């Protein structure tokens, strides 16, 4: 199986506090990789390195290498706008833009591509279909994106991310603010998306990790304690900490 992302010795700092220690991780292409661990263990921080979104904050910095398709994307030479097009991100809370449903999808497309309005409409429809949202919103494309339900908003954000032809999708606890039925829909969606995209999902929900992921990484206090096929991690963890966590002894 091809390796899509390869993190090498990532150390991450908030000001003078180190949050990640020597994180090395190889993420397989077109698989779902789950990142689990107790809160504050650095799993979200790790994810936020992949699209360099942490750079928005003045006091946050990272050392190490992050190789995507053979290129170290932490190199300042790498174009961050293109990187973020290629690496989409879904947040814990749904983040529709303050625009209509249609514009929510069309806006990022227009940023990156020059398309006729007909092509644009097709792309928007494609993205909404791929996020299995089209049937629910096709009659309210002009309504505000904020008027949708929480689960719909989150799928809108997924549609928005895949509309600009990314290769990787980062999901930072995408279902933690959403009800169980909507969560199930999003999990189904993720399983269908992995045919085309490499997905990395941070979750605090171990059942979710077990249900959908192919590989699982267990984080603890900024260290990657254990990484391997999900089935093995959950049935036969090698590390004591991992076992304690997945059996619910802490976290």
């Amino acid at each position, binding site marked *: 199986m091809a390796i899509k992302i390869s993190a090498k010795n990532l150390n991450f700092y908030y000001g003078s506090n180190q949050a990640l220690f020597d994180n090395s991780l190889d993420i397989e292409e077109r698989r779902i990789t789950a990142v689990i661990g107790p809160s504050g263990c650095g799993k979200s921080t790790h994810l936020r390195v992949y*699209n360099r*979104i942490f750079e*928005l904050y*003045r006091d946050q910095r990272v050392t190490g290498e992050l190789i995507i398709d053979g290129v170290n994307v932490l190199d300042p030479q790498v174009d961050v*706008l*293109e990187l*973020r*097009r290629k690496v*989409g*991100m879904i*947040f*814990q*809370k749904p*983040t529709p*833009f*303050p*625009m209509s449903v249609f514009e929510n999808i069309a*806006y*990022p497309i227009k*940023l*990156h591509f020059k398309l006729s309005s007909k092509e644009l409409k097709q792309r928007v429809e494609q993205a909404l279909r791929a996020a299995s949202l089209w049937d629910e919103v096709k009659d309210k494309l002009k309504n505000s994106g904020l008027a949708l339900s929480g689960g719909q908003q989150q799928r809108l*954000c997924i549609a*928005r*991310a895949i509309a*600009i032809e990314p290769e990787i999708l980062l999901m930072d606890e995408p279902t933690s603010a959403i009800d169980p039925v909507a969560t199930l829909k999003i999990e189904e969606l993720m399983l269908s998306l992995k045919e085309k995209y490499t997905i990395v999902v941070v979750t605090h929900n171990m059942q979710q990790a077990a249900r959908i992921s192919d590989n699982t990484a267990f984080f603890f206090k900024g260290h990657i304690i254990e990484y391997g096929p999900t089935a093995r991690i959950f049935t036969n963890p090698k590390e004591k900490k991992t076992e304690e966590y997945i059996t619910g002894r802490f976290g």
Partner: protein
Amino acid sequence: MFALRTDRIFQWLCLISAMIAGLLMLGFFVQLSLSSVSTWRQFGLGFLVSNDWDPVANRFGALPSIVGTLCTTVIALLLAIPLAFAAALYLVDAPPLLSNILSHAIDLLAAIPSVIYGMWGLFVMVPIMQKHVQPFMVDVLRLHRLPVIGRYIGEYYNGFGIFTAGIILAIMVLPYIYAILRDVIKMTPPVLREAAYGVGCTRWETAKDIVLRYGIRGVLGGIFIGLGRALGETMAVLFVIGNLMDMPEDIFSGATTIAATLANNFAEADCLQRSALFALGLVLLLMSFSIQVAAQYYLHATSARRGESRS
């Protein structure tokens, strides 16, 4: 029992004190309406659209003052809004210490008394406008030859006039608009900005397409606050506008504004002219009131400072 009675008396005292705010607001309208009755009797609503101002013949019209007020205000806002927005964008993301110092510096602009802006305008800006800026605009750039907008840029200039007043007003309202825009930008949820950067927006794209849309009501509120300030400003304008009671021909013309007309003519005015000045005051009051209501309507839902300057 005694204690309860003092409590009641105290509460009533407080209520009566608070009522002063409402009574004063009402008082402005009543007083200015009463004092301008004879003007409205004489000229009716035609007062608002007449450009005749002839104290000797006892004929008065508000149009030149109203037009002058609107022109100076529009120029001030056209200059101040982009500057305020750009400055707020930069300083919100700047390193905390730098942002703090520069923000305080900009806030100080609002603390300088307007009469000092007036003096500075008269002795510093007017000569600069006359000797450098306006010759550059007219003789070098030949802006007055431009189609359409050229009509509003005069060929003749002397440093005074609408344009100079607009520039000084722009500097004066800048800190008010800036303070509100800064609050509006800060109010945008970080996760929304992250989402915008996450789909590959640049800083500017995030600001204009996401932050601005998200905080549009606050932005409008801030603009209205600036509008209100510019509209009613008296002293700074009085010194540099030229105080001509004629319809301005172009932006270099000497003109007047409602506030400047009031300050300039009140001392010599009597009878009908005084009443006409009160009528102008009433017009200004109505304009300011509606603008303030609009500003509060837009700022209501936001937690941006409600245009209450800290200066």
